[in-house]
């Protein structure tokens, strides 16, 4: 579903990604972890067609990027640490706006469906700027799944959330992943990444330095390995 082959990205003379090879299979949930500045967000932006690789090949859902960016965008739902929402619009208006942008049919029903899924249907008429950080993030997920994308990209979705809101977001993330979607999530939170994902990859200094299935992985041993590989 997601295939990065020898992907390199430089900003000016500074290399940010240095030959990334990573594949995420259909229905798989992969967590990408790494320290600040490792290139995680850059990799996600390339997958989301918001940025072009300097070198290398990126295929998303069988389509090459950037040649078939429009087709790729239909397949993607993206949640970043910025909610991509409008504070002066209500939850419902935000979803209606994005629904029109994605050509979603039967928008009213679909909007209700996703608001129910993230537990915000009772606040559908409220302005987004009156929402707490946790509610904003849930609305951002509703926005991202509105057009029923096959692939979800999450960029540190837990940033700024308290424990309760984080736990609620985990439930929503699990339900998103349970629908057979392919998920690539960037996270700083190792225990959370291990709990949610099927596989974890460590990105350090622009390179994937380790990948492992999370099933049966000892969190403490993994944390130690993470420290060794990223310092």
């Amino acid at each position, binding site marked *: 579903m997601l295939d990065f082959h020898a992907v390199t990205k430089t900003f000016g003379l500074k290399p940010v990604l240095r030959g990334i090879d990573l594949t995420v299979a259909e229905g798989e949930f992969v967590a990408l972890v790494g320290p600040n500045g490792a290139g995680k967000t850059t990799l996600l*932006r390339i997958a*989301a*067609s*918001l*940025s*072009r690789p300097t070198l290398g090949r990126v295929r998303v859902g069988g389509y090459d990027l950037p040649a078939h960016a*429009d*087709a790729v*965008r*239909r397949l*993607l739902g*993206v949640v*970043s640490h*910025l*909610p*991509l*929402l*409008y*504070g*002066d*619009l209500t939850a419902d*208006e935000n979803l209606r*706006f*994005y629904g*029109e*942008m*994605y*050509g*979603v*049919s*039967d928008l009213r029903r*679909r909007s209700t469906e996703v608001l129910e899924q993230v537990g915000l249907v009772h606040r559908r008429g409220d*302005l987004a700027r009156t929402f707490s950080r946790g509610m904003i993030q849930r609305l951002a997920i509703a*926005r991202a799944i509105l*057009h*029923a*994308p*096959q692939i979800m990209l999450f960029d540190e979705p837990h940033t700024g959330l308290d424990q309760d809101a984080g736990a609620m977001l985990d439930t929503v993330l699990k339900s998103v992943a349970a*629908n*057979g979607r392919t998920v690539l999530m960037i996270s700083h939170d190792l225990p959370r990444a291990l709990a949610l994902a099927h596989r974890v990859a460590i990105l350090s200094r622009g390179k994937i330095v380790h990948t492992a299935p999370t099933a049966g992985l000892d969190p403490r041993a993994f944390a130690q390995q993470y420290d060794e590989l990223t310092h």
Partner: protein
Amino acid sequence: MTNSPTDRLPSALGQGLRATFAIVRKDLTAEVRSKELVSALLVFSLLVVLIFNFALELDKAARENVAAGVLWVTFTFAGTLGLNRAFAAEKDRGSFDGLLLAPVDRAAIYFGKLIGALIFMLTVEAIVIPVFSLLYNINLFRPLLLLVVLLGTFGYAVVGTLLASMAMHTRARDVMLPILLFPVAIPVIIAAVKASAGILLASDWGEIAPWINLLVVYDTIFIAIAYMVFDYLVEE
């Protein structure tokens, strides 16, 4: 694989138009609620008109000579301010990425932002023109002059929207937009001032027509250029 709600997508053109008007509606709804942009533009424009009025202290004949210049200085300064804010707000909230992630032709995003900017600029102008008429004691409600205002504003918004989308990525975007915009917009500003002055001074049609033609040509050329290059300007 589950059926997607986008399976029954309309044609690309229909989807593009729908996206364009969704952006316009979103911008208008947000502005009606916040009143941030139009109120700032309005206060700024009225202050510029007032400052010129008291600073110049002109007799009637001199007022008619400078009126077109003062009017377009006001419109261009206010327009620059508005264009900057329209894109800066999207960039600061990160919501511009949301627009770029949508599976629509980039031109749909450009036209959506253009129509929104145009509506805001024309709304401000619709309030400034009567105030200007009163302060300068000049009747600006002449159909041909209003046509020139429309063509000039359209041309300025066309090129301004394009350059604002480029300037928003720079650190000094507030300064960058005027630096980029004014040189490119000189033909439309000169043509608008000359045509407006000609109308206010009741010049012959032969003197006014070339400037109106220039406005039409400028608008046409830049809308075509914007359609072709907007995609590249918003690429990272």
